[in-house]
């Protein structure tokens, strides 16, 4: 019988939530790595027992943990993230050059075909890859060195590479996104990269449609159609149908188009989910109502999903890596909040219930569908 395993990274540890396919009775384990910031926890699509976790601390730096038994036990693997060559400078908040400094791993993306290959998106923004199960990491330096790197600037939360999308139909194509540089694509397995930000407009930068400088919060893809991407930008929900060559806005009737998360239904490539947040200075839902918005038309037309979600006095945030979907017949949707709730919908968003209510602030949510 199918099961789901929800991997939750929080500000004070990781949690593993498991249920059968009904998704109404959950077993919760954790905290794993109690007291550490767990930026991201994600399993291998080809070996679900293989899970990677980014464990970080302002005191003790970055660790990467690996499980080979579905999150029951863990072992620390390599944590040396050395930029290739002389790293040079990017732009600091005040516009002055600032040396590239490794701070933490924001996102771990296991390969679609090899459980020992995993990508790491880090702050200051760069992409690393390990091909030995996380023991050794090498930078794909063509991204940082393709020409615009010296113009990249951190967002308020740091200059993190937070989105890594591997194209399931073309193993040489990878999309990534950086706050606040924008989206980038490689078509040669990471050797060379170029910005793919045409069509984005950001009023908070001097040239609103500049080649780089856009604060992309998250990009989502449906595996059957990897040329179609959906983006939650700082402001604006965007869509491309040509692998990022051009973007168009699909915010439509959303109450606000600011937000962090975005994801796509497992079986319906035109069904998209976002959680609107009031503004860049008020990181909570409008009117104190926690609402997921769903579009079944690939954007523009959005419907609020509220059943089971708090509709008054709710002032949590939903961070960029904190939404995921399972691939059961009735697609499950999950998201975590800075208030420590993890909500699950077993019916594609029609109704919601909390799996847990009182975790530390949730930084990331990933789901594994297990047979």
């Amino acid at each position, binding site marked *: 019988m199918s099961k789901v395993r929800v991997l939750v990274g929080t500000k004070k540890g990781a949690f593993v939530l498991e249920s059968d396919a009904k998704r109404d009775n959950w077993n919760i384990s954790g905290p794993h790595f*109690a*007291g*550490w910031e767990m930026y991201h926890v994600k399993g291998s699509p080809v070996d679900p027992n293989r899970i990677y976790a980014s464990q970080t*601390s*302002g*005191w*003790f*730096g*970055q*660790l990467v943990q690996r499980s080979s038994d579905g999150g029951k036990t863990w072992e*620390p693997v390599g*944590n*040396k993230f*050395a930029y290739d060559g002389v790293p040079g400078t990017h732009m600091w908040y005040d516009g002055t050059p600032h040396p590239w400094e490794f701070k933490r791993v924001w996102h771990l993306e296991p390969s679609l075909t090899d459980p020992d290959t995993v990508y790491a998106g880090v702050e200051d923004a760069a992409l690393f890859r390990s091909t030995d199960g996380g023991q050794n990491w090498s930078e794909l330096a063509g991204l940082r060195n393709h020409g615009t790197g010296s113009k990249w600037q951190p967002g308020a939360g740091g200059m993190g590479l937070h989105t890594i999308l591997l194209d399931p139909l073309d193993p040489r194509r990878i999309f990534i996104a950086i706050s606040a540089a924008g989206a980038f694509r490689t078509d040669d397995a990471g050797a060379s990269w170029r910005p793919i930000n045409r069509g984005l407009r950001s009023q908070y930068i001097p040239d609103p449609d500049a080649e780089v400088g856009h604060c992309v919060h998250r990009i989502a893809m449906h595996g059957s159609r990897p040329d179609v991407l959906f983006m939650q930008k700082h402001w604006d929900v965007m869509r491309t149908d040509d692998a990022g060559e051009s973007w168009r806005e699909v915010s439509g009737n959303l109450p606000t188009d600011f937000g962090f998360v975005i994801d796509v239904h497992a079986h319906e490539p035109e069904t998209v989910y976002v959680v609107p947040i009031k503004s860049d200075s008020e990181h909570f839902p409008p009117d104190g109502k926690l609402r997921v918005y769903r579009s079944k038309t690939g954007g523009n037309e959005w419907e609020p999903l509220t059943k089971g979600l708090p509709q008054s006095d709710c002032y949590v945030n939903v961070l960029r890596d904190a939404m995921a979907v399972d691939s059961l017949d009735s697609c499950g949707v999950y998201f975590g909040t800075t208030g420590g709730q993890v909500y699950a919908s077993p019916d594609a968003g029609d109704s919601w219930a909390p799996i847990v209510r009182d975790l530390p602030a949730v930084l990331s949510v990933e789901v594994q569908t297990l047979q």
Partner: protein
Amino acid sequence: MIRVLLPQHLRTLAKVTGELQIEVESQATQRSVLDAIEARYPMLRGTMRDQATQERRPFVRFFACEEDLSYGSPDALLPEAVAQGTELFLVVGAIAGG
């Protein structure tokens, strides 16, 4: 033999309880002690000092004999009492953050 007390998070990471007892091959300095700790507990690499620059992490301190040794040269000799194992070499996480 040098006695080292790690902060709780690093003891958990290294799967140890209580103090470490470390042998150093050369003279007892911050560097030789940290080298010996990292050789025996490789999971601690990068947690007390940067792996590339070998610089102490900003929120980590080294105390011994009621002195803060953090700003001394990593190659300075540690106090004799530490080298003899009568006093602990303390690795401390700063009181900061939430």
